[in-house]
């Protein structure tokens, strides 16, 4: 008797799938054949020293930079070729990217809200202002705010479309410890409420240890290690992620592996 085949479950789409990714600028290999995949709803830290290739990797994930070879897929769409399938589901925050200084916070959020076709935009701005303690600054020019306040505005812009995927490039750089801790708390809350995928590039080990369930360590464009913060600390026989980072940055990880 004919038996119908078992229904196959749809192939699982990774939030981000990077395969053999290479970026060469003239003679510099900024990213050198990296591969990784992120589950939807996960929060991952991308760690590495200056020039490790973190920012270039994030830029390729966002479609800002074209890979020399290899592929990047975001929610199943190949970047940058199919970017318009997913850009409305993503957002980005970095202290190195500003928003127009002369526009008030409310005006900036209105412009970006319209670009992302946010419904009930005024309601969304009020909601974000309350969550990020921006209500009293809403009608002040963005350029007149302090660094901490500007970071909160940038975060509001990054959350305006309730993104499924949030990319953060050193989100707490140049913030005092108290404000940085506050920002981390808001990010944790957003991820829990929205179930978003977060990829965070950072130099701040404590931040990554607190927020991330997985850490990808990069050095000279390559992935040096990839595990949970706890596993990395245990495997390297260290007390903190910062010590693991220093081991990798100074090549002691390779020496340790060679000795084993």
């Amino acid at each position, binding site marked *: 008797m004919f038996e119908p085949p078992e229904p196959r479950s749809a192939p699982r789409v990774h939030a981000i799938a990077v395969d053999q990714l290479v970026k060469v600028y003239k003679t510099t290999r900024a990213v050198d054949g990296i591969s990784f995949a992120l589950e939807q709803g996960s929060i991952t830290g991308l760690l590495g020293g200056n020039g490790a290739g973190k920012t270039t990797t994030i830029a390729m994930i966002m479609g800002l930079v074209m890979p020399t070879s290899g592929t990047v897929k975001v929610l199943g769409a190949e970047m940058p070729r199919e970017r318009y*399938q997913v850009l409305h589901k993503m957002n980005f925050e970095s202290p190195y990217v500003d928003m127009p200084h002369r526009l008030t916070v409310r005006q900036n959020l209105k412009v970006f809200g319209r*670009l992302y*076709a946010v419904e009930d935009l005024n309601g969304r701005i009020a909601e974000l202002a309350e969550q990020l303690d921006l209500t009293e600054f809403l009608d002040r020019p963005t350029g007149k705010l302090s660094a901490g306040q500007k970071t909160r505005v940038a975060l509001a812009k990054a959350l305006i479309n309730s993104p499924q995927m949030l990319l953060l490039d050193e989100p707490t750089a140049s913030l005092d410890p108290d404000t940085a801790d506050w920002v981390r708390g808001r990010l944790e809350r957003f991820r829990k409420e929205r179930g978003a995928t977060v990829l965070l590039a950072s130099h701040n080990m404590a931040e990554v240890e607190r927020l991330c369930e997985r850490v990808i360590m990069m050095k000279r464009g390559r992935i040096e290690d990839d595990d949970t913060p706890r596993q990395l600390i245990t495997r390297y026989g260290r007390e903190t992620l910062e010590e693991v980072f220093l081991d990798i940055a100074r090549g002691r990880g390779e020496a340790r592996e060679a000795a084993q």
Partner: protein
Amino acid sequence: MSAVSTSALTLSPHRIGAMVLRYLYLLRSSWTRLLELIYWPAVQLFVWGFLQFYIAQNSGFFARAAGVFIAAVLMWDVLFRGQLGFSVSFLEEMWSRNLSNLMISPLRPIEFVCALMIMSIIRLAIGMVPVTLLAIAFFDFNIYSLGFALAAFFMNLILTSWAVGIVVAGVLLRNGMGAESLAWTLMFVLMPLTCVYYPVSVLPDWLQAFAWALPPTYVFEGMRALVMQHVFRADLMLAAFALNVVYFGAGVIVFLQLLKSARRVGSLLQTGE
């Protein structure tokens, strides 16, 4: 969020409107930007207007051709200010380090260009309408009396200004702020060739071929024919329009190629010098 189109060719009035709103907020917040739009065209008008008065007093020919210099300077400002309105709005994104935010948003490049074209017209209107009123008040020259011809001149000049503005924006994307001076000076390369203040016939023969390859040349010749001989040269306007279609199309292609190249070399990340 509402349904979102995923095609690169989609034109969303909503996103174009968002960008226009962004530039209007900026203009509203800065009286110096508004003043800058008006003051230089006004200075130009007075210099050329008084020169016209002086020459007309000493030359019967120019007395008959009253207004030809004033019309020329107003037309030149449409061309130059149209391009500047386009390029400066684009530069605002680079000055404010906001370009990456836009490039990772759903805004399509072609929508960005449309917003810049709309802003070019708005900035031009803010600057030129008061100056045309000054021309009526001080020099008894009413450019609006040119009627339909004025519309044809304006359309052709603004199309050329956008074609140049689009290429400049592409070069800025690809090469960063080091290319900023192009935005301010590129149009001046065209000034002697487009024969703003003199007929094409005064150029050497070999240079005339280059002049006739530029749409504004047809407009300035047409303007002189209208003001001095009271003849509307539709043939010149059609030739200018045909050339504009070619240059505008080429400008869009060059812009998209430069944007692609900017993604390749990573200059969308670093938009400084």
